[in-house]
């Protein structure tokens, strides 16, 4: 889609050059033709843009942006920030990511947005706290990131100033540099060609865009993920609630769930025994997984079903 857009611009410039010299009969004909072509090209771009926006909207759901960047009150405006993330390291006030120039991200360039998602660095060069899950988002591909940005920028800007975080004394931007040295490496997702496509799609969604491990992987005291126990759950999750093991362990994990069980749960929150979750996962289902295509939910299931057994701690 980006390529089409680029071509359009180049052709537009070329056409303008061609149009400049004459206004004779032939020139007029030519300009008429050119005008027509231009019109067609614009329609082409508009279609490409609306496709990108549609994809961006889908990816915004799949990335879980809404559940975190929206305040908890019922009349909260989506993505305008205000949600409080209460963690052992303090309270993070999740910021406004609508395109408001003053209080949102309206002044951000594409590079700013990519830098935030892939490197965890703000437009003014500061490290983001890893409460913003860039350690997962770093694996997302650039096309997806730009589609998300395009979608966010198509929304109504909302003026809503961000509140400062209330963090423990030892948590600073500097300590984040240290954290990043230990636990962060910027790298895009590389598909594993020995695995089926569905598994790879699931891996992309679980590990990166959907950032499931941010909650489901236990963390050490420094807030670093224990990768040897990926997705094995945590008795005391980052927001205080216990987070279940979603590996294949039959006793403490979801080893007895079928692919359909997983899909049903991600679709509307039903556990295999007919109970319905009311946990923090409920918001994830409402604002993320229930909006996915059944194919993407099945891909997540395929990935989870292929995980090694890990006992919860």
């Amino acid at each position, binding site marked *: 889609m980006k390529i089409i857009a680029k071509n359009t611009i180049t052709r537009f410039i070329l056409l303008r050059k061609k149009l400049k010299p004459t206004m004779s009969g032939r020139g007029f004909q030519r300009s008429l033709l050119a005008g027509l072509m231009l019109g067609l090209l614009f329609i082409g771009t508009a279609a490409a843009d609306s496709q990108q926006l549609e994809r961006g909207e889908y990816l915004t759901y799949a990335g879980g942006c809404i559940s975190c960047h929206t305040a908890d009150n019922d009349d909260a405006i989506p993505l305008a920030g205000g949600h409080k993330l209460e963690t052992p390291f303090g309270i993070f006030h999740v910021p406004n990511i609508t395109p408001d120039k003053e209080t949102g991200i309206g002044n951000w360039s594409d590079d700013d947005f990519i830098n935030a998602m892939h490197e965890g660095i703000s437009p003014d060069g500061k490290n983001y706290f890893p409460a913003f899950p860039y350690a997962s988002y770093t694996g997302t591909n650039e096309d997806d990131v730009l589609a998300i940005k395009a979608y966010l920028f198509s929304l109504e800007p909302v003026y809503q100033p961000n509140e400062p975080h209330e963090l423990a004394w030892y948590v600073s931007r500097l300590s984040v540099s240290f954290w990043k040295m230990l636990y962060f490496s910027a790298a895009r997702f590389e598909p594993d060609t020995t695995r089926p496509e569905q598994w790879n799609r699931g891996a992309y969604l679980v590990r990166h865009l959907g950032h499931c491990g941010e909650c489901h992987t236990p963390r050490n005291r420094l807030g670093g993920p224990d990768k040897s126990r990926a997705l094995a759950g945590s008795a005391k999750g980052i927001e205080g609630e216990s987070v*279940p093991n979603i590996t294949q362990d039959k006793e403490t994990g979801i080893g007895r769930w079928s692919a359909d069980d997983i899909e049903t749960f991600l679709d509307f929150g*039903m556990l295999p025994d*007919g109970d319905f979750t*009311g*946990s923090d996962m*409920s918001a994830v289902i409402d604002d993320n997984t229930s909006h996915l295509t059944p194919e993407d939910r099945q891909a997540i299931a395929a990935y989870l079903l292929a995980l090694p057994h890990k006992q919860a701690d």
Partner: protein
Amino acid sequence: MPILKSFNVVTALSGSLLAGFLMAGTAMSAETEDTIKYRHAAMEAMSGHVASFLLIATNKIEAPEFLQSHADALVDLSRQLNLMFPEGSGGEDTHALPAIWEDPEGFSAAVIKMQETASALQLATRAGNKSATMKAFAEAGKSCKGCHEDYREEHDH
């Protein structure tokens, strides 16, 4: 002797009074205990019907003739919901959150939503329209989930 007698009477009287209090105490808590036990069992019954319903509705179990009975049971059980949470049946031994009694209007609205969505599921099942049934099922599920979010303490299964 009369002094001792009256002392005895007083002791006996206060003793039985005390016992009475204690009995009342235990009787109350036994009742609450049973309320919680029943509520828990009835909720389990509901989830049992939900899980059974879905297994049949998605053709994993070939027993279409049983589908209606599960929907009907859900309607019946959802009608009991307002009676399952009497004042004073909260506390440590239950996952029912204090919000149930602190916000009776909100809770009652959630119960009504469950009853309405269960009735809609019953009707859709009776009409035999598959996609409408699945839609109604998802709606009923949402009302379960919505109520659990606000009024149930989450716990491991």
